[in-house]
């Protein structure tokens, strides 16, 4: 391994490759900050540049740098504008945005930068040590387990929605899953539920839906009820975090780096599930007093998803580099780029072309360091976006929402769908329905159905549920997750009404 490390260092520290890391991180951060342009689109746009370089190590280093940069930039816009451009940073806005509203935007960005750095670095360390071993773990999972794992993820999201909200969160999740079935499925190639409308043939656009669920209602709420958008004078002074806060987030970062990395390794799970699960887990194991803080600007609630999504990004490289199987949309694009450069990722990669494998790992360390040293000093300037007067900020938010939906599809109908869904989402927000579960259900819907269908075909029916113990166990966890909070709520209510407990 030491030999490999040195090979990697030698490759990664060449002037050209260092410039690639720096350039990739910068481009990723700036474009990722724009709501609506996620890592997938940025990497897709950068592919012609990367391929024309001709050097596979440099290309992969550049694209990986763009990837982390975009995730980092996405969390910046989640925190400052509550407009996540990337699904993986939706959870960061739960606590990051309230912090920014309380005038602690600087602190929130610092926490995010430190958590991202720690998550990415620890993830890269784990990748280095576990990459060969972990591929066998991922191999143990069949599509039945993937299906069950997604059910667990979705029920966890619903279960942690809060008292009296479980049914609402479940309805929103199911609505997201239902919306994901619109259009042509990968498995059947039959248009479903399109009502004969051509524009629905390819389904709803993810970015359009994300914009309609988050950015648009937020902008409308800002219009309806003007509130003080900036802190006292809009100056971001409080960049430092106190020793107490550092102590509070240190264990969170430790736990979430590990958990996020291992979730990232599983194909299909990735940064999105890792960040939501990380948020949910940290919220559940926090003491009661801190639990109430979650969602209102808790540093722990911000550090958890930030660490987890960066660790998961690194983790998603494991199946790509060791098995040649992309675990997420982003790594699928990377796989395409590698094949175009005449490199076949897989178990032989480490043997045949060790300099590529190790250079990518070393560039992960360098990239994370650059994001930390580059972005922390830049934070006061990034945060200047909050001092823009409301009369200018709101039209620009609306414009970027529209642009994000338009660029993805190049179709003006998408904009009408966006406005329509935005109005629906605002109504749902009035009635206190949580909107994030809908989006997560939508993202996972297609993957979930494909895995479900595959296991149905393998077992010729639903018998996979009881014939595979791991599937059964995961599904049991999902049922408990949904049943427990509503049971607890009924008990608490019964006790309030003066009815004696059974035990």
């Amino acid at each position, binding site marked *: 391994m030491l030999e490999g490390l040195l090979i990697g260092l030698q490759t990664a520290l060449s002037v050209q490759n260092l410039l690639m890391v720096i350039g990739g991180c910068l481009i990723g951060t700036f474009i990722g900050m724009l709501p609506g342009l996620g890592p997938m689109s940025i990497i897709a746009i950068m592919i012609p540049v990367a391929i024309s370089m001709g050097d596979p190590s440099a290309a992969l280093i550049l694209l990986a740098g763009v990837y982390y940069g975009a995730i980092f930039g996405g969390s910046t816009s989640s925190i400052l504008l509550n407009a996540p451009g990337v699904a993986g940073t939706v959870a960061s806005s739960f606590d990051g945005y309230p912090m920014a509203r309380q005038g602690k935007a600087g602190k929130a960005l610092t926490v995010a930068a430190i958590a991202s750095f720690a998550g990415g670095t620890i993830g890269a360390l784990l990748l280095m040590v576990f990459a060969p071993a972990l591929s066998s773990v991922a191999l143990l999972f069949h599509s039945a387990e993937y299906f069950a794992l997604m059910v667990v993820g979705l029920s966890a999201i619903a279960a942690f929605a809060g008292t009296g909200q479980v049914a609402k969160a479940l309805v929103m999740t*199911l609505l997201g899953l239902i919306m994901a079935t619109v259009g042509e499925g990968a498995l059947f190639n039959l248009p479903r539920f399109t009502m004969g409308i051509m524009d629905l043939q390819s389904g709803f656009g993810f970015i359009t839906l994300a914009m309609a669920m988050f950015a648009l209602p937020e902008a409308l709420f800002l219009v309806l009820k003007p509130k003080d958008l900036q802190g006292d004078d809009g100056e971001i002074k409080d960049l430092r975090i106190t020793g107490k806060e550092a102590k509070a987030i240190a264990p969170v970062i430790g736990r979430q780096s590990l958990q996020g990395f291992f979730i990232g390794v599983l194909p299909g799970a990735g940064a999105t599930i890792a960040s939501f699960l990380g948020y949910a887990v940290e919220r559940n194991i926090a003491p009661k007093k801190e639990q109430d803080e979650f969602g209102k600007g808790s540093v722990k609630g911000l550090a958890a998803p930030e660490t987890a999504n960066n660790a998961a990004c690194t983790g998603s490289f494991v199946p790509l580099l060791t098995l040649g199987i992309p675990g997420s949309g982003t790594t699928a694009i990377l796989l395409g780029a590698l094949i175009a450069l005449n490199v076949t990722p897989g178990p032989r990669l480490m043997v045949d072309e060790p300099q590529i494998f190790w250079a990518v790992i070393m560039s992960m360390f360098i990239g994370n360091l650059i994001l930390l040293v580059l972005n922390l000093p830049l934070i006061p300037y990034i945060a200047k976006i909050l001092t823009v007067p409301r009369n200018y900020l709101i039209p620009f938010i609306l*414009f970027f929402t529209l642009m994000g939906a338009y660029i993805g599809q190049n179709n003006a109908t998408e904009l009408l769908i966006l406005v329509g869904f935005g109005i629906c989402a605002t109504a749902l927000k009035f009635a206190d329905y949580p909107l994030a579960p809908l989006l997560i259900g939508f993202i996972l819907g297609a993957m979930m159905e494909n895995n479900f269908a595959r296991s149905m075909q393998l077992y010729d*029916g639903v018998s996979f549920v009881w014939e595979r113990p791991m599937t059964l166990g995961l599904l049991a966890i999902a049922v408990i997750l949904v049943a427990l909070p509503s049971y607890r709520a009924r008990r608490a209510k019964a006790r309030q009404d003066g009815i004696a407990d059974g035990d």
Partner: protein
Amino acid sequence: MALDRWLALVLLGICLAYGYAAWFTMDAGLAPFMKRNPIWPSTFPKVLSVLGIIAASVILLGIEKAEPKAADIDYRRLGEYNLGQALLLLALMVAYALCLRPLGFLISTSALLILGSFILGERKWHIMLPVALIAAVSVWYLVQVVLGIYMRPLPGILGG
């Protein structure tokens, strides 16, 4: 009945319509060889529709009591907020969607940014105009030249 239960009723209606489509309209056109498959295109939607109907009914019937909490905006007093501005902005966005192709990117975007600020009460034309124009041109330049995504800049009659 509170708004959240009205919405649950709407959602129940959506689930029922979806369930009807999944249970009764999808299987008829299925090719015979696909009927031997253990999973049909309608299988997953069928499961979803049943679960959705159950969950929406739970809210509608008020089985799970929500804790009343102070919402950010009280929808019962919607008229007291800047409802007019919000509706005008929504109309503006629809107009933008309809004008983007015929009028071209530069004109539509500048108009969106200027009218958006105007609706919100901004009257400083000497700031509004340059900001909107610079933003529209630079975003167009970025998207068209740097990213290489074609967007018609000007109306067709002007050669855009």
